[in-house]
């Protein structure tokens, strides 16, 4: 989860730190180096995921955003982190700090890379979440109500799906459900004003931005 030691700003991490060593290992797809960096850090798996994995994925996300890395690097980095977390935690959720219910969904699309990338980041940071897969507006609202979701993460590949977030927002408001919506995906990158147009609370340009977004929402609640 977003921890007190994690600023959400990758520039805060100094050269030679475990974060940048891990970033290098992930981009180089060096599984053994990941294990070694973990062992050398002296951190518990939970602390390692909070203090090293989450910021490393953020660095990689920022580099993708700037055009210094490809989506294939982002994907493989996330996949390696997921594998590592599965190995050291055996699928147990890491976070003790995240008390809200977080759900992740794709609206009416069967192409799920964006959702999987966000899932990697959440798992890497030890944040438990409900995976709704591909759903339509009605089903999504029904599940949010049933599960008491407080933060809904929506990945949209195409513009019509992105515009449907407006229907989700309106339906939640009609039912009086307090739930923040965080969106991401190509249409929101191409038009930075779009997330406000559809009533989302925040938009993420990269999957790793979901961590500072969750932190921002949590600060807003406190």
């Amino acid at each position, binding site marked *: 989860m977003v921890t007190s030691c994690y600023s959400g700003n990758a520039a805060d991490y100094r050269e030679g730190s475990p974060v940048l060593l891990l970033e290098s290992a992930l981009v180089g797809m060096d599984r053994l180096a990941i294990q070694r960096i973990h062992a050398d850090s002296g951190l518990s798996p939970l602390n390692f995921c909070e203090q090293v994995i989450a910021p490393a994925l953020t660095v990689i996300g920022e580099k993708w955003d700037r055009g210094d890395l*490809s989506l*294939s690097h982002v*994907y493989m980095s996330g996949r390696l982190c997921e594998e590592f977390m599965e190995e050291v935690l055996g699928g147990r959720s890491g976070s003790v700090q995240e008390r809200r219910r977080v759900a992740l969904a794709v609206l009416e699309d069967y192409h*799920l890379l964006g959702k999987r990338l966000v899932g990697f980041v959440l798992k890497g940071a030890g944040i438990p979440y409900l995976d709704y897969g591909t759903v339509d507006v009605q089903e999504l609202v029904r599940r949010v109500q049933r599960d008491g979701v407080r933060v809904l993460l929506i990945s949209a590949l195409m*513009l019509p799906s992105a515009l449907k977030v407006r229907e989700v927002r309106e339906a939640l408001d009609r039912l009086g459900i307090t739930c923040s919506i965080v969106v991401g995906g190509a249409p929101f990158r191409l038009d930075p004003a779009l997330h406000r147009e559809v009533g989302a609370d925040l938009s993420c340009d990269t999957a790793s931005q979901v961590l500072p977004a969750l932190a921002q929402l949590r600060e807003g609640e406190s």
Partner: protein
Amino acid sequence: MTSMERVLTTLSHREPDRVPLFLLLSLHGARELGLTIEEYFAKAEHVVQGQLRMLKRYGHDCIYAFFHASLEAEAWGGSTIFREDGPPNAGPPPLKADTIASLTPPRIADVPGLTRVLEAQRALRQAVGDSVPIIGVVMSPFSLPVMQLGFDHYLDLIFDRPDLMHRLMEINGAFCAAWGNAQLAAGAHAICYFDPLASAKMIDPTLYRRFGRPVAQKAIAAMAGPTATHLASGPCLQVVDDLVDTGTKMVGVGGEEDLAAVKAACRGRLAVLGNLNGVQMRSWDEAATVAAVQGAIDAGASGGGFVLSDQHGEIPWQVPETTLGLIGQAVREYGRYPLAGGRG
């Protein structure tokens, strides 16, 4: 000049009478005919009428004989999901990695959706002859697996099973060349080779050079007509030399890069197609529309080798007809060669 003369002049890196305009309108014909998008694509004659009416209405310089990308997914056993307000989308990916070894390319004649496209292209060619370029579309063998397998499983394949990846490129390459040639034989003058994964934003360029560039070289060489490679909003600067090596004649670029820098990198080697932002275009007023057209022309049009278009290769359904009309008007007023004041 006819549209064809204008486009051929700019493709030879000379200045025609004005900047050519490609409004890549695959969906708006449905509204033009009062049909749903699903009804529109169900009959070739609808697309023919839609394209011809839009040509007359906007006075742009191409016919876009593209239906929707999911037709190619259908050819491999996939499905199409229609929407009321956007492009048809590919349903669940039809292939699994373990089926690749025994896979063979589908026959075009066996896929009703593809034969409808060919029927439309034959009728469009009959209608306009060689006065207006008719553009057909193929998905590149390197990008098609996103619909065949799903993007995540495709990336897994590249990293975990390069042997199967090579095999998939071989099969997809054969299909791509056959599909492109079928469209050229039916009436298309040129093929748009959609390859978003060629962009360094999507795939590490070393992987593109290992898998995507070789299959592009082979497929493009096998096609009996010119091709333009479109990166569907993706940046291209890191792979311009690679694209030149594939034999393509033009590149469709996204808006994240400086268009002037792209033009400088491509000058004399690749014509540049782009790069109005279709998503933002939904809400442009007249001033914003004119400014966007002027900005693109100023950045890219000097010396020819530039076609004004959107950045993705498809203008969203939500873009109003008035905006499209304004774009046409602006390019006719502002895009005349020689460009005033040494612009571009």
